[in-house]
Structure formats: structure tokens, C-alpha cells
């Protein structure tokens, strides 16, 4: 009996130990890519240093390019040769394999925790180098350096900056016995390196990045009330910036990082958009309407705020100037439900949650023509967040009853699922570009 109890305790302990990383790790699957994906070969990098190479940089780069849906990397086994320097490249080999572009490189261990990732990109048809670069790194930043190489390659070949060096924040919810456990994670854009930054038995929601990518604002319900916190990622230090009576919700940093748009309701429950300067405590109310006004999103120039309001009956997107120079103007008209706007980096469109015949889907609304373009086909898609290069929108969906993350390209051609091993994942938010 005692033995059995011990065994079961041991099994529980092992399960708990192994659960944390398994739960957190996201695995990306490409559901739909472009049919004309560009054939590319990323040859395993050479390594000059003691022991084994500390990272498969070519594998990271090939993975990034493949997940973008725009490139089809050649499997290593199909390569006729595996050059690591320009001198060794025989373009005939690669033309034979119908490869458009060739990426080669090497990793140098320079000692004292200093590394150098060198890479070259060749146009196989022209037989000419199109890009050559070297990035210094430490053991801890080798992965980030590899993503940065992928960003540069992607930009050279597509004309769009890559977003592989960015990160994603999301909320994960797992059951612990009778209770839910809410956790806020930050992971690399490819799902690797998940780090828990906050954990609570009460809901955590609405994470939002500061424009320098160093802080996250979010809502926590600890103490059975809502409050907005800003947490510094590097130190884990967090500050309570709003815990007023009623709702404290939907925080959004201004493009200059000085202001936080947020939803406050006061004791009487009238949700309105406010802007707060967390450094000075200065607070300004931007809307004054008995309806629900919430889910603020700053325009690219920081001069206006888009938000959800049901002042016309159902939720629609409105816009209000931040300087108080005018009233709110309605932006969306197509359909009876358009909520949670996010502005594309070029400022031309809004990603919204749109009700399409009873299904909640992610749509792009063109701000000039006002036309609505539905991008996803789920039943409960929500929380759209746009990559800083404008290429992809990450969002939350449900697959087989579980909260799952997914991404779709803004042109609708590429779609991916980011599956967690267990529990629900939700509210993904794409970080800005890292600052180098």
C-alpha cells in the first residue's frame, strides 16, 4: 500500500517535472504555403572550433525560411556537395537540383565565449553572390544570431524584412486539479525558448509589448480585482500602473512608449478609453459614452486610437484623435461584429475579429476602401496580432476544443498552426523588431 502510494507520488513528481517545458513549447505546422515557394539550399555550416558545433545554424535558418511558407529548402540528403566556402561552390550541382538560391556559411569559435557566424547567399542561375555577412555572437546569442541571418536572407530575397528574430508573448492555461493555472510566456517566433514571466491562479490576460520590446503590459486578476502591470523582461521586475475601482483592462503602449492606452470603467461600470502616462501618473479620458468602449490600438503615427465600441448596438471599430481635437468616428460597417482592432505597420489596414455568419474570424479592413477581407476559416478565431514586417497575423483559435495559436499571412496564402503539447494557449502578441 505504502509502496503503491510512493510509486504514484513519484510518477506525479516526474510528470510535474517534465510537464513544464512540454506544455510551454509550441510546435509550428504549416497548413498552407504558397505553391510557388522558392527552392533554396541551406548547406550545413562548417565549424572551426573545439568539440561539436554548439548550434546547427543552417538548420535554424532553413527552418525559418521554410516556416515563412515562401521558401522550400532542399533536404540535406539531396545535396550533391556541401560547400562551406565560396571557393568550393560548383554552381552546376545546384542548377541540376533546380535550386534558385544557395546559402553556405561557417561558425567560428574565437574563444572566450566569442563566436562568429559567417554566411553567403548565391544566386545559382547567375552564379553570383547576392549577400555576404558575418555576425558576432556569444554562446547564449547563437540562436538569435542565426535568426538574424535568416532575417537578412529573407529581406534580400523577398524585399520584405524578416521577422524571425522577433518573439511572441502568449497566455497558457492548464488545469491543476480543480483549479486553472494562468501563465504568461515569451517565446522565440519559431516557438523555441519559451520562458514563463508570470504565473497566477487568477486570470492573466491582454499582454501588450512596449515598442522597444523590453517590457510587457498585462492584466492580472490577483486579489479578485483587475489591475494592469508593466513588467521588465530582463529583470522580471513589475510595476502596478493601474488598479482603479472597476475595470482596468486592454493596455496598449503608444508608439513612442511613453503612454499607455487602457480601459477604465469606474465603480459604475462605464467602460471608456483613457491614456495614462505611467511615469507621471497623468491620466486623460478619451471617450465618454455609456456604451462599452475598449480594446484600444494606436495608429502607426500615435495620433489616433482605434477601439471597439457597441454604441451603435453591436461592437464596431471607431477612431478617436488622441489630442482630444474631435469626437469618435465609426470605421467599420460591414457585418454586425467587428472588434479588437490592430493596425498594420503601414497604417493602411486593421486586423479585426469579424463575425461571419455566426463564426468569429480574423479579417483585414482596408481603411481607405473600407472593404473587409476574411483571412481565416475557424469558428472562434480571436486576438489578432500583426508581425512587425506586416507579413503575418498570429491569432488564437480552437482545435478539437483546445485553445491553439495559428498564423496567417496578410495576403491569406500561408497558414500555420502553433500547437502546444497540453493546455490552452491564447492571446498571442507579436513583439516589435529587436533593438541591436
Amino acid at each position: 500500500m505504502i509502496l503503491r502510494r510512493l510509486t504514484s507520488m513519484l510518477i506525479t513528481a516526474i510528470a510535474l517535472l517534465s510537464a513544464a517545458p512540454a506544455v510551454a513549447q509550441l510546435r509550428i505546422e504549416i497548413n498552407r504555403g504558397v505553391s510557388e515557394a522558392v527552392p533554396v539550399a541551406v548547406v550545413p555550416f562548417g565549424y572551426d572550433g573545439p568539440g561539436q558545433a554548439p548550434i546547427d545554424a543552417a538548420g535554424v535558418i532553413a527552418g525559418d525560411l521554410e516556416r515563412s511558407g515562401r521558401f522550400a529548402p532542399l533536404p540535406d540528403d539531396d545535396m550533391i556537395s556541401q560547400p562551406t566556402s565560396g571557393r568550393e561552390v560548383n554552381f552546376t550541382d545546384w542548377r541540376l537540383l533546380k535550386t534558385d538560391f544557395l546559402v553556405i556559411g561557417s561558425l567560428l569559435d574565437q574563444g572566450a565565449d566569442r563566436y562568429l557566424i559567417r554566411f553567403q547567399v548565391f544566386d545559382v542561375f547567375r552564379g553570383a553572390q547576392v549577400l555576404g555577412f558575418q555576425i558576432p555572437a556569444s554562446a547564449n546569442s547563437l540562436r538569435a544570431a542565426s535568426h538574424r541571418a535568416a532575417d537578412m536572407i529573407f529581406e534580400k530575397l523577398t524585399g520584405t524584412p524578416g521577422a524571425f528574430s522577433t518573439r511572441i508573448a502568449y497566455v497558457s492555461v492548464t488545469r491543476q486539479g480543480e483549479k486553472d493555472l494562468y501563465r504568461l510566456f515569451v517565446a522565440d517566433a519559431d516557438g523555441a525558448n519559451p520562458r514563463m514571466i508570470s504565473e497566477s491562479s487568477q486570470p492573466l490576460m491582454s499582454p501588450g509589448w512596449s515598442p522597444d520590446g523590453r517590457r510587457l503590459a498585462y492584466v492580472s486578476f490577483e486579489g479578485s480585482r483587475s489591475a494592469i502591470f508593466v513588467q521588465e523582461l530582463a529583470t522580471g521586475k513589475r510595476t502596478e500602473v493601474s488598479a482603479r475601482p472597476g475595470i482596468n483592462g486592454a493596455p496598449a503602449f503608444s508608439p513612442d512608449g511613453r503612454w499607455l492606452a487602457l480601459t477604465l470603467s469606474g465603480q459604475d461600470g462605464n467602460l471608456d478609453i483613457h491614456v495614462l502616462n505611467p511615469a507621471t501618473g497623468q491620466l486623460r479620458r478619451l471617450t465618454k459614452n455609456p456604451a462599452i468602449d475598449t480594446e484600444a490600438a494606436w495608429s502607426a503615427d500615435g495620433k489616433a486610437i482605434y477601439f471597439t465600441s457597441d454604441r451603435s448596438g453591436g461592437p464596431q471599430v471607431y477612431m478617436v484623435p488622441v489630442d482630444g481635437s474631435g469626437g469618435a468616428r465609426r470605421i467599420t460597417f460591414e457585418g454586425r461584429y467587428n472588434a479588437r482592432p490592430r493596425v498594420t505597420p503601414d497604417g493602411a489596414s486593421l486586423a479585426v475579429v469579424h463575425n461571419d455568419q455566426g463564426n468569429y474570424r480574423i479579417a483585414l479592413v482596408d481603411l481607405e476602401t473600407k472593404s473587409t477581407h476574411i483571412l481565416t476559416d475557424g469558428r472562434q478565431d480571436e486576438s489578432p496580432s500583426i508581425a512587425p514586417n506586416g507579413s503575418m497575423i498570429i491569432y488564437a483559435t480552437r482545435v478539437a476544443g483546445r485553445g491553439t495559436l495559428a498564423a496567417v499571412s496578410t495576403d491569406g496564402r500561408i497558414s500555420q498552426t502553433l500547437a502546444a503539447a497540453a493546455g490552452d494557449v491564447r492571446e498571442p502578441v507579436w513583439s516589435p523588431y529587436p533593438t541591436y
Partner: protein
Amino acid sequence: MQTKRLFTIAIACLLAAGCAKTTKPDEDATDVVGADGEISRQTGIDTGAVAGGTEYLEPGMLPGDSTLIQETVIYFDFDTARIRPDYSEALSAHARRLVGNQGLNVRLEGHADERGSREYNIGLGERRAQAVRQVLMLQGVSAAQITTVSYGEERPAARGSDEAAWERNRRVEIVYSE
């Protein structure tokens, strides 16, 4: 929550059983006049080991209120914060309890079903909590005794993505604290 509802049902069944027995005179029975004039009756067990007892009432409460205040979850129809008429008795009982016990506080926790965007659902949950708050305040409860919090869709009472689960999640929970 589930156990509380079951308890309410159990009490109701006991009352019903007592009523059904009224044809047989019973010396342990106690008549209770409810708020609506209805008569209910509690009955002791034949062995005589346990007496019937009478309803315990806090200051300000009317006979029958101790049963009514066990209704602590108010459910709502889709996309509305309108309180169904069948909750008015229970809410009146809660109001009498709060008016009669100024030291008692209540937290109204509003919730929404999972459909649609999360922060907007926080708004819908708050609207429901405010609707209950208004009813209590109209019956004399002081604003200082009431706080509201909206969890939106973040703390569902029922799992699942069907109408049965959604119905149980569109709710306001009445939580007392000293």
C-alpha cells in the same frame, strides 16, 4: 458552485416533502409564511430524535429569505444583461439581507460566454454585474457594500463550446464577505 445549487435543490425537495405530508397532522411541524404569502412547512422525523426547528433569519430578512439567498448565481440570455423576472425574489432577499446587515459586503462577479473578443467580453460581464448592482441599490443597498468585478470569458463555470456550456457561463455570481 455545483454543490451550492444541489443544496438549494435539496432544501426545496425537503420543503416539498414536508408539504406533501400535511394531510397527516404532525406535532413537530412549523408553518412558515413566505414573502409571497405562500405557506411552507418543515417536518421533523418520526423517531423524534431531531426537532423540526425554525428558519434562522438575520436582521431585516423575511421568512423564506434564507432559502432564497442560496440562489447566488444569476444566469443571462445570449448577448444581454437583462435580469429574468424569475430572479427578482432571490435578489430582493439578498437586498433585504444587505440592508439589514450594513457590515456585510458583496462582490458581484460578472461573466460572459467564450464567443467573441476577450476584452469586449469583460465589458459584457461588467454590464451584467452592474445590472444586478442596480437591482440591489434600487432596493436600498448602499453602493459602499457592493463591488463588481468582471472576468469576461476568463473563468468559465462549464467547459465546452456548445449552447449548454455557454448558458452556464453567462452569469453573475454573488459572493459575500464580512
